[in-house]
């Protein structure tokens, strides 16, 4: 099997040390960084994503694979920058003001990175303005908002309003999620999209990005 195929396979198995070694070999063999990224790391993560959705593998497997992806990416990053390889898009993520819960949005971020997006994770208890400022600073087209409690969910509406008040609707889209959040709530506050879990968040981000390209 070729080097790129082995990278993809080892990544699927979560073998981060092996992935790191193979990526180093691929760099030494003068394969381009974009080839290593797309045909090695992202190809492996795409299989992981498909198998996760089909319930053939589970979150622990995905998280091991994501760690292996990071191990490879770390080596590759300087080369990607010098080749001017751009991510598929940039997503700002954070838990809304007043809310401390972060594992949900952290998992969404891991899955999005695995699908080739750049993710700027602002952490927890994030002010509405900070979301919008970060989206402008990082030229992100999507803001992903997370909340754990019904009492912190209204802060999502405030972010959506800020986007509109700053005349950024259409340029910046909002995606909401979290245990108590529903599709109806997303509609009610005027968010652009809702996703139930991390796997569907990736699909939804893809759909939002596609809708911008048309």
């Amino acid at each position, binding site marked *: 099997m070729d080097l790129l195929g082995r990278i993809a396979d080892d990544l699927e198995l979560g073998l981060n040390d092996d992935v790191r070694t193979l990526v180093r070999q691929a760099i030494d063999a003068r394969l381009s960084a974009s080839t290593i990224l797309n045909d090695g790391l992202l190809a492996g993560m795409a299989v992981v994503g498909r198998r996760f959705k089909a319930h053939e593998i589970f979150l*622990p497997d995905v*998280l*091991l694979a*994501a760690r292996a992806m990071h191990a490879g990416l770390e080596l590759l990053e300087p080369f990607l920058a010098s080749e001017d390889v751009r991510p598929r898009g940039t997503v700002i993520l954070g838990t809304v003001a*007043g809310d401390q819960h972060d594992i949900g949005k952290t998992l969404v971020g891991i899955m999005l990175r695995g699908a080739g997006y750049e993710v700027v994770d602002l952490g927890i208890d994030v002010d509405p303005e900070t979301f919008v400022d970060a989206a402008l600073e990082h030229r992100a087209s999507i803001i992903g908002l997370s909340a754990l409690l019904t009492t*912190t969910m209204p*802060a999502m509406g405030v972010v959506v309003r800020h986007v509109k008040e700053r005349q950024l609707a259409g340029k910046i889209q909002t995606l909401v999620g979290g245990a108590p959040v529903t599709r109806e709530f997303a509609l009610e506050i005027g968010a652009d999209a809702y996703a139930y879990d991390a796997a569907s968040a990736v699909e939804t981000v893809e759909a939002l990005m596609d809708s911008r390209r048309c």
Partner: protein
Amino acid sequence: MRECLELAPDAIEVDQASVVQRLGSSRTNCENGLFQESFTAAQGFLAATARPRCVVQTVDLATFAGLYDGEGSNDRDTPLEVILERSEALALFVLTLGQTITDTIRRLFSEHDYLVAALLDGMASLVAESLVESLETRFGRHIAECDGKSTTPAVLAYSPGYCGWHVSGQRALFSVLKPNEIGVSLGAGCMMRPLKSVSGVLVAGEPEIHDFDPGYSCCSGCDTLECRARIARVTGPVCAKREVAWICSDG
């Protein structure tokens, strides 16, 4: 009665199958060596960073009925209202695992140790939930001792944010309980800090008082039917009692 309790870290136990299930896996036993390595690492972090503490305080029915209404946001009908009428004794509680465990989970995620971090998060949530069950057992025993009875009443915990009791009800609960000694505070969005904390009321009485049909307004959109398993815990043939060695920390 008001007591502050803490738990020795070596008294904390987690069951691998439940943790794996918590992570959404239908496989309850992972043979994968990397998984086992991560599980053992997470167990080590759990023992080193969880610091379970709680405050429990008895309240009379009138006081509780006042605070149960909270800010008037409860559903129009709730199972707890009916249960309360037939209860024998009530105690407010707040329980926490402390801030260090949450800081550790965040650090592990930022260091890309994703699986260890997620396992530790799942373990922490399970431990918090199971320690609430241990408070139920302890409160039941306390009442039996006070009343000089040989049988213990059936105790279940009910929490704001569940089954029609609005999550904003925590403000009234905190105003009475004031769990400052264990370092838990309530933010503007009704979220407790540290994150791995649970608040609620322990309700003691005959097992039947906890039994009801899920026909309340909150039940129509409920896909967990969690009350069924909880009711079975006190009305079923085998009453599973969770015992852990809490230590009084307030002298």
